[in-house]
């Protein structure tokens, strides 16, 4: 009788476990997804890049890019068409900064995070 009761309990526990949503355990020391992690490296052109790009992008978007001067110029021109504010006289320094720091040889590692609430 006792054995039967234990079996029922074990089966009930197994069933409950199967029916329960899998609990995803994240490392609570990880930063929360959506945190802005990166800052831009120092150098000529940084100020122009921050002023023009940061209204819509976090630095993360820039630091993961690996683009040639031609590609960066096209991106900057596209963003100016889309409303980014950048003086024509600042463009050369901004593009040079982006190529110098985030050219084709740039390395990027995504940041390990946990969703908010986990």
């Amino acid at each position: 009788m006792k054995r039967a009761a234990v079996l029922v309990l074990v089966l009930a526990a197994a069933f409950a476990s199967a029916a329960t949503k899998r609990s995803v355990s994240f490392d609570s020391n990880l930063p929360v997804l959506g945190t802005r992690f990166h800052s831009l490296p120092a150098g000529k052109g940084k100020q122009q890049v921050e002023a023009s790009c940061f209204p819509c992008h976090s630095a993360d978007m820039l630091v993961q890019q690996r683009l040639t001067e031609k590609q960066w110029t096209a991106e900057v021109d596209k963003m100016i068409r889309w409303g980014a504010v950048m003086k024509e006289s600042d463009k050369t320094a901004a593009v040079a900064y982006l190529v110098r720091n985030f050219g084709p040889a740039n390395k990027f590692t995504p940041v390990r995070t946990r969703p908010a609430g986990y």
Partner: protein
Amino acid sequence: MAQKAVTPRARESMLQMNGYAVNAETPLALLTEYVTPNELFFVRSHWIPRTPDPKKWRLTIDGEVDRSGDITLSELKKLPQAETTCVLQCAGNGRGLYSPTLPGVQWRYGAVGNARWTGVRVRDVLERAGVKPSAKHLHVFGSDDPPGKVPPFHRSIELEKVLADGILAFAMNGEPLPVAHGAPLRLIVPGWAGDHWMKWIVRLSPQAEAQKGFYMETAYRYPLTPGAPGVAFKPEEMAPVTELFVKSNITTAPAKVRAKHACEIRGFAFSGAPDIAKVEISDDDGATWQETSLDPRHDPYAWRLWSYHWTPSRSGTVRLCARATDSRGNVQPREATWNQSGYLQNSWHFVDVEVTA
């Protein structure tokens, strides 16, 4: 390009590509379940949504319909429910693996997942409004319009496709659709790339013509004829990205194993076709292939998990790769076709394993 060996169980985390707007991929080693948990599901956002109070939210239907109007969420939920389990993959998943390199979010492997989506059929919603025969495209609008001159993420999809199997989902894996995944309503387009899976939907508008704008006429297009890597195709030389390409990834492989000792290799495979016919593994750079075991769990356009007991015959660094063949006979290529926006990357996935004597 080979990946380092995948550990059987990494510590759980999401790999953030962008903090604002939020973009994050799932570590491949965690994509081992048939249904990807919501918390581990990749997040792709073009812009910041204005998530409405569900009580105040309305879905506006206008355009080439007999009866324009608004539907509340509770009215929508009274329609017959529809459910499907299928793969969602960002069109740009793998962009970071293309060479020459490309601008945009540098996704590698994990902008993909398989979830159970619950909602109502697009067909049922549009039938209430009475779609006119002139309508051929469904224009879809979300609440994530950007400021100023930044092009809004406005899209359209062929009406024929969404009437066939499109779902407006309000639940994901049995839970209310999370905000990051488009609450209160997202479009589910089984077998098609994620750019069609609009989030935070507020308006549907059947129209005679396709939507115009940057995200239809410039972005999300794929070359009609392959060209050399680095070539810049004109928009008219490309067509909109639609169906996913056949693809498999290795999720589980030991970092180190002894020669002549069996170990388990696992992964997933999916396609724009409703099913996967086979997944094969090679340990000699594709000279010979061994067929893996497909997991019986499947729904149309869902992924297939696969596994293979591999016994390495020689010591040294052994490069494993997987390739899938779908139910229409499409075979995953060694090299994906380069395209200037980095879409639909589906090259063979290589993983290095250290085999000791």
